[in-house]
């Protein structure tokens, strides 16, 4: 796919739609277009977190394996959302398995490439930190809310 086309796709993704042209070009230099079919795994817990994904279509479930209880699904990520933040937080390892539950079309960003760009251009790095801090904050709030078991007795 042409870089120009990717730029157009990125412009419509809520996570980066308001990025400056300059920062968008940096992102595009590390992007590829990917697809995953239902039932496949995008990554597994413990593996190196080399990428993050902007979902354009489909749905992914994050799973934790808990011994005899098997896989517990704790969150789904859908269209317009971001999958993966471990690429930006040391030691850059995935904490969950990512199981595709609806065929996925996504943009995959090379984490190592982006970390190098973040080090070289701190303005760009700060933009990334701001955006991924929001993802982490939302995840943290959601996790606390789920732990409260608000619908229980």
């Amino acid at each position, binding site marked *: 796919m042409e870089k120009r086309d990717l730029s157009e796709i990125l412009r419509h993704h809520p996570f980066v739609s308001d990025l400056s042209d300059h920062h968008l070009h940096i992102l595009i230099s590390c992007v590829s277009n990917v697809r995953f079919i239902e039932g496949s795994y995008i990554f597994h817990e413990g593996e190196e977190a080399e990428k993050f994904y902007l979902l354009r279509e489909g749905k992914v479930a994050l*799973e934790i394996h808990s011994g005899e209880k098997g896989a517990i699904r704790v969150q789904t990520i859908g269209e317009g959302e971001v999958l993966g933040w471990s690429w930006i937080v040391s030691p850059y390892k995935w904490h969950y398995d990512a199981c595709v539950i609806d065929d996925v079309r996504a943009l995959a960003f090379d984490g190592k490439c982006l970390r190098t760009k973040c080090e070289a251009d701190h303005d760009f790095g700060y933009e990334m930190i701001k955006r991924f801090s929001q993802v982490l904050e939302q995840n943290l709030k*959601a996790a606390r*809310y*789920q732990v409260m078991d608000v*619908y229980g007795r």
Partner: protein
Amino acid sequence: MNSNINIDPMIPVPAHIRKIVWETEDTFTLLLEPDNGGSGFHFSPGQFNMLYAFGIGESAISISSDPSKKDNIAHTIHRVGSVTSVLSQLEKGDVIGLRGPFGNGWPVEKAKGKDVCIVTGGIGLAPLRPVLYSIFNNRKEYGKIFLLYGARSPLDLLYRVELEKWGKMKDVTVQVIVDRCDSSWKGHIGVVTKLFSYIKLDTANTIAMICGPEIMMKFTIQELSQRGVPLEQVYISMERNMKCGIGLCGHCQCGPKFVCKDGPVFALPQVSQFLEKKEI
């Protein structure tokens, strides 16, 4: 109050259980017919009745049926205490006491001509089901309808057949999310506010109605506010310890309001200052 089955709102009338539907493992719906004629029973979506398990006590339960159907008055009940436990053990043909309806209702008239966004969790869907029936009975008078519904697990979802049916209706978006599940569930997992990511609200033209645990409502209000929905267009249903139902006993007092009489439905600006206070 719009009581029309009994002149004295403090005296229960006998009501026969016509049907019992178990919605989940611990939640059931009683369809009741008052002895003095269910056909004369009128209620507004959002109102509640006091159901009396003889010899045990009363419990405030929202009416969950279609307001246009008078023959059976439905109450969806979560079995959590002594009264609801006894109610859960009754059978078809048994008699309980009924007082009501009490309180005000959801702003179904005010919502005419607008989009309606219903956000609910757990048993909170029950008092909003009559709103959906009212809208569907007068479909042309409303814009787009969004139902965002959160539950503990797929097995805890209420009205599953209806949720599927409503989701197939034109200009009706039904999004369901659960806190936890196994791999057989293909829907969303997470908190109910996450569902806002999958809908587009016309914020200026939307009336939001929220019912669920107070912490869920708090997060939902924050999300609606961030998305630009004016707070005067947001309505919530409060839950307090309702006893008399007519604003006399004070058990359900919330600041200067009596939830049983002035509520349970409030426009958010009426109660927002009290939601943040621990003592209230």
